[in-house]
C-alpha cells in the first residue's frame, strides 16, 4: 500500500469542505499539525493499492499569510512536503480563483485542479474549455460537482497519476515585467549560495515571496544574518512598487487564461444584487437579521421538543425497570443517581444542540452570514469590535470552542484578543440546561423571558468588555472591515446534515466522556466516606462545597450550588449533572430545588448569571490558551470572566432583594 499525501487548497466558499467530505467520508479526524498548534482536518481514502491522505487547508485568497489561518495554509504548503496539491476552483468564478493558482504553481509541487460546481456554471451559461485550461496552466483539470459526488473517482485517479509521476512538476510560468525578473535573478542568485537555509523552497521562488512581502521568510533570513539584495537595500516605496508589479502580472496571467478557456454564452444575470440590496439595507438590514435569529432560536427549541419527550420517556422507562430489579443498593445508587440522574439531565439537551448546529450551518451555506456580518459591522465597530468578529460570536451561541478558533480569520492581534475575551460571554448551548432548570423551577411562566434576559445580558457584558479593553488597553481602532460575500446558494440538506453531525458528534463525545466522567466524580464524592447519607453535608462533596461556600456567601449560594460551580468548570452541563446527583436524581431535582429553604428566585437568578459569565469550560480554556499563544492573556481572559461574574451576581442579588423586599 502506497501512501499519498495531498493538500486541499482553495479560496473560501468554493466547496472545499464538501469535496473533503465526499473524498474522505467519515474517515476523517482533526489532528495537530506539526510546527504550529493549529488544527488541519485530515482524512483518508483508499483506492486500489493507494491510500490517499487528504489534509484540508483553511480557505485563502493568497499565500501572503497576514492572518493565522493563511499562515497555516502557507506553512503546510511550503514545509510539509506533500505529494501533490489539489486546488478546488469555483467554475462560476474562474478568473478570481486563478489568482491563488498563480501563487500555488510557483511552489513547484505537482498540482491538480478540481473544477467544482460545473453544473451551476452550465446553468449560468458558462462554457469552460477544460482542455484549453489544462494546456495553458500545464496542470490537469478535473470537472467535479462535489455536492453530488460527481467526478470524484476521476479526481482520485488523477491524483494517483500525478503524484506517482516521477518527473518534477513544471507549470506555466508567469510573465513578469523586466523590473521584476531582474530582481528575481539578483535575489535568487544570492540565495542560491544559502540554499540550505531555505529548506524545500527554491531560491527563485523564495525571491518572489520576499518581494511580495513574506515577512516570516524575511525575518528568518535576517535572523541568520543575511543581507538580502534589493529587499534590504531599497526603500519601502520601491518595494511596494515591485510588489504591485508582481500582483498585476498575476492578474494579467489569470485574465489571459480565463479569456481563452471560458466563454459566456448568455448575458449574465445577477439576481444576487437585488437580494443584497434588501438584506443589507441601511434600515431593514438589522431588523431582518434579528428576525432570522429569533426564528432560528424558536425553531431550535420547538423542533427539538419531540426528541426531548422521547429521551425523557426512555430514561423514565429505565428507572422504572430498575426499581423492579433486586440489586445491590450501592449499584442502584450509582445507576439511578449517577448515570441516570447526572448524564440523563444533560442528555436531554442534545437535540436542541443538534438543531442549533443544523440551522447555523444552513445559514452559513446560503451565504447570509457574511451579509449579516456586513450589517453588524457598523454596530460592532462602534463598540470597538471588528465586523468579522460577529461570525465567531454567532458560532459562540452554539459552542465557544469553534467560535474561538474562528477568530483566526482576523488580521489584527488586538481584534483577535478582544474577540477571544468576549466570546465566552456568548451563552453557549451547554449553559442552557442550567437556565432551563433554574428558570423553570423558580420563575414558572416567566422562564422564557428570564432565559432571553440571560442571552441579552451575555451580549451586553461582551459589548461592555469590548469597550473597556478597546478604550483602556489597546487604544486603537479596529482594523478596517473587508470581506468577500459568497454567492447565494441553495443550501444542501445533505451537506448541512453532515456538518451538523460532525459538530453534534463532538458534543455527544463530550457528553459521553467529560460530562459522564465529571458526574461520576461528583457521585463518588457524594457517596464517600462510606456510611454517610448520600449527597449530604457530611459527604466529601459536601465538605468541599462548604470549604468554598464562604467565598460565595455574599452571592447567596449554598454549598450544593458551589459544588455545581466547581464541577461546572469541566463542562457547564455538569452544573446540572452534579446538582442532579446532589439533590437526589433527575426526577427529584426540580421538586428538591423548589423545596430548598436556602434558595429563592433572586438567588437562582444570581446563580444563572454567575454560570453565564464565570469561567469558560476546560475545552474552551484550552483553545483560548492555544489561540492567545501566551498565558498572560489567557490569565486576563479568565480573571476578567470571574470578576465580571462575581460583580454582576452580587449586584443582581442585592438589587433584586431590594425589589422583592426579601
Amino acid at each position, binding site marked *: 500500500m502506497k501512501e499519498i499525501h495531498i493538500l486541499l487548497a482553495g479560496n473560501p466558499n468554493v466547496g472545499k469542505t464538501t469535496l473533503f467530505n465526499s473524498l474522505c467520508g467519515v474517515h476523517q479526524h482533526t489532528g495537530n499539525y506539526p510546527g504550529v498548534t493549529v488544527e488541519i482536518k485530515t482524512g483518508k481514502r483508499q483506492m486500489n493499492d493507494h491510500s490517499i491522505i487528504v489534509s484540508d487547508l483553511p480557505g485563502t485568497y493568497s499565500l*501572503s499569510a497576514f492572518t493565522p489561518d493563511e499562515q497555516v495554509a502557507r506553512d503546510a504548503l511550503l514545509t510539509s512536503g506533500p505529494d501533490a496539491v489539489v486546488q478546488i476552483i469555483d467554475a462560476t468564478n474562474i478568473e478570481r480563483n486563478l489568482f491563488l493558482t498563480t501563487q500555488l504553481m510557483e511552489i513547484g509541487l505537482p498540482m491538480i485542479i478540481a473544477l467544482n460546481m460545473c453544473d451551476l456554471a452550465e446553468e449560468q451559461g458558462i462554457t469552460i474549455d477544460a482542455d484549453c485550461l489544462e494546456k495553458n496552466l500545464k496542470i490537469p483539470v478535473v470537472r467535479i460537482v462535489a455536492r453530488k459526488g460527481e467526478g470524484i473517482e476521476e479526481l482520485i485517479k488523477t491524483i494517483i497519476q500525478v503524484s506517482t509521476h516521477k518527473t518534477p512538476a513544471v507549470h506555466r510560468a508567469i510573465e513578469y515585467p523586466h523590473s521584476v525578473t531582474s530582481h528575481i535573478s539578483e535575489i535568487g542568485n544570492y540565495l542560491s549560495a544559502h540554499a540550505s537555509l531555505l529548506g524545500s523552497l527554491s531560491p527563485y521562488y523564495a525571491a518572489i515571496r520576499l518581494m511580495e512581502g513574506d515577512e516570516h521568510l524575511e525575518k528568518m533570513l535576517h535572523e541568520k544574518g543575511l543581507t538580502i539584495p534589493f529587499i534590504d537595500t531599497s526603500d519601502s516605496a520601491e518595494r511596494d512598487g515591485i510588489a504591485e508589479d508582481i500582483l498585476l502580472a498575476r492578474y494579467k496571467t489569470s485574465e489571459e487564461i480565463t479569456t481563452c478557456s471560458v466563454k459566456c454564452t448568455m448575458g449574465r444575470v445577477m439576481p444576487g444584487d437585488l437580494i443584497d440590496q434588501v438584506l443589507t439595507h441601511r434600515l431593514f438590514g438589522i431588523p431582518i437579521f434579528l428576525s432570522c435569529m429569533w426564528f432560528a432560536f424558536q425553531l431550535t427549541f420547538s423542533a427539538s421538543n419531540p426528541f426531548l419527550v422521547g429521551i425523557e420517556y426512555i430514561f423514565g422507562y429505565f428507572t422504572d425497570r430498575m426499581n423492579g430489579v433486586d440489586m445491590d443498593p450501592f449499584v442502584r445508587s450509582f445507576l439511578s443517581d449517577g448515570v441516570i440522574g447526572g448524564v440523563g439531565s444533560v442528555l436531554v439537551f442534545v437535540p436542541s444542540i443538534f438543531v442549533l448546529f443544523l440551522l447555523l450551518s444552513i445559514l452559513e451555506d446560503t451565504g447570509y452570514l457574511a451579509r449579516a456580518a456586513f450589517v453588524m459591522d457598523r454596530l460592532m465597530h462602534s463598540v470597538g469590535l471588528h465586523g468579522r468578529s460577529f461570525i465567531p460570536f454567532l458560532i459562540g451561541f452554539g459552542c465557544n470552542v469553534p467560535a474561538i478558533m474562528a477568530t483566526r480569520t482576523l488580521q489584527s492581534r488586538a481584534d483577535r484578543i478582544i474577540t477571544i475575551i468576549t466570546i465566552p460571554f456568548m451563552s453557549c448551548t451547554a449553559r442552557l440546561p442550567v437556565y432551563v432548570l433554574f428558570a423553570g423551577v423558580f420563575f414558572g411562566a416567566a422562564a422564557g423571558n428570564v432565559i432571553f434576559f440571560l442571552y441579552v445580558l451575555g451580549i451586553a457584558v461582551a459589548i461592555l468588555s469590548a469597550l473597556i479593553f478597546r478604550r483602556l488597553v489597546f487604544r486603537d481602532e479596529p482594523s478596517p472591515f473587508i470581506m468577500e460575500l459568497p454567492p447565494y446558494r441553495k443550501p444542501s440538506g445533505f451537506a448541512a446534515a453532515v456538518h451538523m453531525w460532525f459538530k453534534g458528534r463532538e458534543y455527544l463525545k463530550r457528553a459521553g466522556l467529560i460530562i459522564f466522567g465529571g458526574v461520576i466524580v461528583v457521585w463518588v464524592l457524594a457517596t464517600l466516606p462510606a456510611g454517610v447519607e448520600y449527597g449530604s453535608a457530611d459527604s466529601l462533596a459536601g465538605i468541599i462545597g462548604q470549604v468554598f461556600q464562604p467565598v460565595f456567601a455574599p452571592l447567596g449560594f449554598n454549598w450544593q450550588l458551589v459544588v455545581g460551580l466547581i464541577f461546572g468548570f469541566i463542562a457547564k452541563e455538569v452544573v446540572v449533572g452534579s446538582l442532579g446527583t446532589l439533590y437526589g436524581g433527575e426526577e427529584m431535582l426540580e421538586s428538591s430545588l423548589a423545596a430548598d429553604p436556602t434558595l429563592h428566585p433572586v438567588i437562582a437568578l444570581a446563580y444563572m448569571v454567575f454560570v453565564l459569565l464565570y469561567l469558560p469550560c476546560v475545552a474552551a480554556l484550552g483553545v483560548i490558551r492555544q489561540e492567545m499563544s501566551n498565558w498572560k492573556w489567557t490569565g486576563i481572559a479568565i480573571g476578567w470572566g470571574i470578576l465580571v461574574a462575581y460583580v454582576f451576581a452580587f449586584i443582581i442579588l442585592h438589587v433584586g432583594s431590594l425589589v422583592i423586599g426579601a
Partner: protein
Amino acid sequence: MVPLSLTKSGEKVVVRSICGTGHLAKTLGQLGIIIGIELTIIQKAKESVIVRIGESRYALGAGAASMVLVEPL
C-alpha cells in the same frame, strides 16, 4: 476622484488610486481591488459599501472604503 465611501448605490466606477500601503492595501490587491478595475456599487450603508467586481462581491467597512479612490464611469 472620490473615495468609495462617498459613492452612490448603483453607480459604476473605476478605481484610480489606493491610498496607503501595508497589509490593508495588499489585502485589497489580493481581492482584485486594483487600479484600473471597474466596480459596481451594490449597496451603500452610511460609509460602508458592497461592491461587485465581475462575479465577486466584497463588503468594505468605512475605513477600507475611504482608502479606495474612484472615478464614476
